Structure formats: C-alpha cells, structure tokens
C-alpha cells in the first residue's frame, strides 16, 4: 500500500498496464517528455521509451482519429486530451467513428481505446479549462463514460477501462487531482465499470454525485448530520452505463433524491437520474427529486466562479428542502 494522489494513482495504473501489455501506447500533447501538463504521465516515457509514450502534434481530432486506427489494428491506445474544453475538435471522431466502429462492422472491429482528459472547474482557470461535458459524451451510443472520485477508484477504474474492449472516455476531476491522498494498493486491481458505490448509508435522502462533487457532498453531509438528517451518498463512478439498480434500491429506501453535478442543469445528468427515479421508484417518492447543478451559462471566469461552483452549503440547503418537502 502507499499514499497516492489521484495523479499518482493514474500514473500507477498506466505504469502497471504499460508493463503488462506491450500493445499499449500512451500519447497526447505534452504527454511524453514533459509527462503531461499535470504530470500524470511523468516518468513513463523514460521507462517505456518514446515509441510507446510520446508527444503528438497539436491536433485533438487527429489524436483521437489516429487512436481509433491504432485500436482497430492491434494496439490498445490510451490517448490524452489536454483539457475538457479542448476535446471538442475530437468530438466528430468520437461520435462519428469511435462510437460506431463496433456496430458498423457488426463486431468484426472492436475499439479498445481509452480517451482521458481532466475535467471540471473550481481552479480559477481561463476559459475552456473548467468544463464538465459528461452529458455530451454519455449521450453518444457506443462509448462508455467513467469518472472516479478518489485515488483508489481512479486506479481501479482506469485499469478496467484499459482492459475493456469498448471505447471508454475517462474523465479525471482536476480540481482534486492533488487535493486528496489515499492508501492505494500497489498491485494491479480493477473496479468493474457500470457499478455505482454507496459511500455512506442513510435513510432520509439519497444524494447522487461523482468526481470532485463527492467531496463537497461529504461536507454537506456533515451539516446534514448536525441537522438530524441521515443521508445516503452514492458515487456514480460510471456515467454510462448508469447503475440504475443501486440508485433505485436507495430511492426505495429513502424516498428522496438529490443529484449534485457541476454541468449546466438543462439537458444534463440530473434529468437522466430523475427519469430513472420515475421509472424505477415512482411510488416510493416522497418528494420531487432535485438536481443541484450549474446554471445554463458558461462557467464564469475566476471572479465569478464562486457563484457557479456548487458549495457544500448549497447542497445542504437543497437536502434540507427535499427532506422537509
């Protein structure tokens, strides 16, 4: 076991897989020599050579498109896009080809590739560096979307993503890249995709979140406990496919649902989870499910960001209102 941050855990996962599987290559902008702008791939080029861990030219569409080509022809590429706001040039490749190749060829061609990028706000960054596009990607049939919230999960989920033969979008919560440390096993392990995790059991309300928001929810839960409210906290971990069973079981127990996510509220994951609550647990609902999400605006620049980013207080406010409905 050793103490790792999320950055270190991801680095460790990549290290383990690069050693084990020679068909794996890792590349992106500044990923090779510099080890990535967040140092996630630090040391890997030195260890595995420039043929396997390298810098690509500055072109996200080409990075992903070439990755697809590699995946179709015997390699298992792990490509890095530098920031959430810069994944969009690659969107065409993802929606038009990466997600479709398996279906298009009726399974003759599989796409064992992972597209990883840091996402999320709360770091006082410039425009395009604070986005939370999970809904955009989850809405594309044919790919999976995974978002860890702890170092342990980051390692396990990434290894599972790499070993999966389906294309996986792996979104890394940059706000907490280095903000938390955890004891993580040094040997290889994986966490199944498509399974949410009940982090804390409770009986008054179910709170569903993922990524950097888990930490904010936990702070809100402390406030809720003081107010005598028992919260059941679920970490989604995989956005697509979503673990309906875990969520439904919880709602049937508590009768209330609060969803916390950074992305703009309209047409996002909140709506999806409320639909699930409806479909799976309609008769058990004692209050309308509530989504606590960003405004339908661009993430404001640093001086405005505090209005936008969801705070523990705001989460607690909505928990309280839901419980008192």
């Amino acid at each position, binding site marked *: 076991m050793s103490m790792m941050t999320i950055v270190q855990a991801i680095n460790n996962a990549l290290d383990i897989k690069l050693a084990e599987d020679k068909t794996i290559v890792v590349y992106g902008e500044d990923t090779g020599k510099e080890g990535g*702008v967040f140092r996630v791939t630090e040391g890997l080029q030195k260890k595995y050579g420039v043929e396997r861990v390298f810098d690509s030219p500055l072109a996200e569409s080409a990075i992903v498109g070439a990755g697809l080509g590699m995946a179709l022809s015997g390699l298992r590429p792990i490509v890095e896009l530098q920031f959430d706001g810069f994944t969009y040039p690659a969107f065409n490749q993802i929606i038009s080809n990466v997600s479709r190749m398996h279906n298009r060829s009726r399974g003759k061609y599989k796409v064992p590739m992972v597209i990883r990028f840091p996402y999320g706000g709360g*770091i006082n960054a410039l425009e395009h*560096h604070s986005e939370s596009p999970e809904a955009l990607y989850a809405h594309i049939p044919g790919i999976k979307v995974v978002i860890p919230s702890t170092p342990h999960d980051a390692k396990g989920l990434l290894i599972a993503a790499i070993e999966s033969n389906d294309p996986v979008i792996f979104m890394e919560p940059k706000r907490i890249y280095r903000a938390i440390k*955890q004891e993580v096993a040094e040997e290889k392990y994986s966490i199944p995709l498509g399974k949410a995790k009940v982090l804390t059991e409770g*009986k008054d309300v179910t709170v569903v979140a993922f990524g950097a928001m888990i930490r904010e929810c936990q702070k809100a839960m402390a406030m809720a406990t003081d107010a005598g409210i028992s919260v059941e906290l679920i970490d989604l971990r995989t956005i697509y496919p979503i673990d309906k069973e875990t969520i439904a079981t919880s709602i049937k127990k508590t009768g209330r649902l609060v969803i916390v996510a950074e992305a703009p509220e309209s047409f996002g994951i909140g709506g999806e989870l409320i639909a699930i609550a409806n479909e799976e647990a309609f008769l*058990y*609902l004692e209050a309308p499910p509530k989504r606590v999400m960003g405004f339908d605006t661009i993430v404001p620049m*640093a001086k405005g960001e505090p209005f936008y980013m969801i705070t523990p207080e705001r989460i607690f406010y909505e928990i309280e209102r839901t419980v008192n409905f």
Partner: protein
Amino acid sequence: MMKYIFNFPDIGEGLEEGTILEWYVKAGQPIKAGQALVNMETDKVVTDIPSPKTGIIVATFGQVGETIRVGSPLVEIEVEGVASEKATITTTEPPKTEAIEEGAAVVGTMELAGNNAALPASDEGSAKSASEDTFAPKALATPLARAMAREFKIDINKVTGTGPSGRVTKEDIQHFQPTNHLEEIIEKRSEVNAQPTDDLTTYEPLTQIRKAIAKNMLNSKQNTAHMTLFEEVEISDLIEIRQKFKQKLADKNIKLTYLPFIVKATVSALKQYAQLNAQMDLENNRMVYKNRYNIAIAIDTPEGLVVPVIKDADKLSIMQIAQKIAQLSDKARDRKLSLDDLKDGTFTITNFGSIGGIFATPVINYPQAGILGIGRIVKKPIVKGDQIQIGNILPLSLSVDHRIVDGGDASRFINRIMDYLSDPVFMLME
C-alpha cells in the same frame, strides 16, 4: 506617505510556511515594485518574493533561517502618495498560484493535499455487515395520493392500500379512518364528549368505530349489487369428525369449532371459482383477481365488529386455521389487533350462528366479491331415501356482488362448499 504591510503570500504550493534564506533588502532601503525582497525556501522550491509596491522599506520581519507562516508579515513599506485604503490592500485571499513543480497545471490554481487530507483506504469488495437499522415499511403511493394524504393530515404509512401491489390509492385515503387500527379507536373514545340528556331522548356521540361501521356499510351497499343466496347443509358427518378431534386439540390447547372446517371448505371452493376471490376495478376498467386466499373472519367485540384476516388460509391445515382463529380472537378481545392483521382480506366469513341467527343477508366487506354468513346449527327432519331422519342443519347465507358474480357461479360456489361440509373427507381428497 502610507505604510503598507506585505504578508508572505501563498505562492501556490499549498504552502503553510517558508524559511527565509536571504534578505535582499533592509530597513531604510528604497524598493521598487517587482524588485526581489527576499529568498524563501519552501517544501519543494526556492524562490524570490518580489515587492508589490515602490517605496522605502520600513522594516523586515523574520531572520535568516527563520520559518514564517503564510499570511504573516514579511516587510513593511512606506509607499509614497498612495491613498490610505489602497495602502492597506493586501491580498485578502491570495489565490494559490500554481507552483513550478508540485502543482503543475499550466493554467489555474491547483489545490494541494495538506497533511490531513488523507482518505481512508477503500473498502471496495469487502463484505459489509448488514445494516443494523430495520426500516419501517413505507406506503407505496403516487405523488397525487401523497399530496391528498398530506392535505387531509393523514400519515400515509398508516393507510391500508387496496391498489395494485398494495398501493395506497386516492380512494383509500378518502375512505381512511384511523379506526382500522384498534388502538386508535380506544384512544379516541376517551376524547368523546357526552351530551346532556332529557326525558325524551338520550344523546350519545358517535364513536369512531360506529362511524366507521356506518360508513363501510353504506359504502358497500351503495357500490355493489348485493344478492344473497340461502342454503342448508346437513353436517352430521362433520359433527362426528369434530367430536373426534375436539379433545385431541383441546389437549394442545386449541379450541376446535366448526369454523376452521368452514374456512377450509370456503378456500377450496374459492380456488375453483376465482370470481369470488376478486375485485372490480372500475377506474381502470379491469377485474383484479387475488392470488392469495386471505379469509377475513368477522368477530364481535364489545366495541363492535372487527374483521381480522387469516392470511394464506389455503396453506394452513385445519388445525393451524383453528389456532389462527383462536389467536385472532384473543387479540381482538384484548384489543391487540395490528394494522397488518386487518388488511388484505380477499373473502369474509361471518358467524352469527353462535349468537343465534339462522339466515341473514350479510353485507359484503367492500371491495371483496362475497361474504359467507354462518347460522346456528339446528336439528331438523330431513329426508334420506324415503325415510325421515333427524338431520343437523347448518344454514348458509351467501351474499355476492352481482356485478362480479353471476347467479350461476354463486350457486355453484356455495354448492361446492356444501359438498365439502356435508362430506368432509371430500375436502381431503381435493
């Protein structure tokens, strides 16, 4: 001239402190904005701290080798011609600027884990002990029903649900009276106020149970099409069997009456005539056939009629039915019947024979499809072959909801029961 105190800024490594390595300035020295003041060592990086202002150094704080905390004063500068408020503008909340190495990010300010930011190791995959809490079963209900319950200030979890899967419907809420729960009845009685009496009349406020009974009776009569069949069945063989086992069961402390046999016969007949174990759901345009055989037994108590339910009577032996009846009777007498004891009945048997009646037109326990009334056993002359004999006649009064049960089915149903009661061994055979 204004004095400006410059505090040691958090230059972005999640720092809490730094060690002074070298002072570049001293008191009395002029300083320009941007000029290096001091060389500081932090966890990972050695860096110069530039002055934010131009002016004269008034004082430096901290010796070489000393460790100072982020936010504590570093230098005091006398700034020329600056308005007072501006001079005291310090970075109120210096954003954590990214360090060269530790917080590498290329853009943005990264939070770095402090010493107490460690999470416990994951318990993934470890078997979790089952939760200690048992969660009280909750009512299933649509939001509409819940809203209604709230409006009427009813706790929806106390309402018996008659909808699909035991759902609490709007009607259930409308018809809800807390008297379904016997304890509540007793409590409420104590709230009843007596009225003054005079020679001609005596007033007594209605008890909850009386109100409930009134409501139920009216409701049943108004919403169903009552039709009653009267039959007589000769039960000498049954009497003999009962006699035979009465003592055996008494030894086990079980009182064996005819009721358990009647329950058994009824259940067997219900299995063959599903109409009698059903309900009509007009709202949804459908028949609701119950797959369980929960026989409700009407019991007369000093407070009034209660109708506890023998659940899954088809799965019980006659002995077990006898036990159950005894249990429920005791509970009824002691006012200990629970909500669960009273709900989910699918067919009712009412025994007024023990009180003395022969025939009656029992009122259906709405929304069930039928109710079987049992009268008093009488000795009567019967014809067997061409001989006149003394027969033991049990009168039966079967009321059915004619919307659900046609005359033919009602006849066939009761005939079946009579077959069983007149020849109990037949019950064993089927």
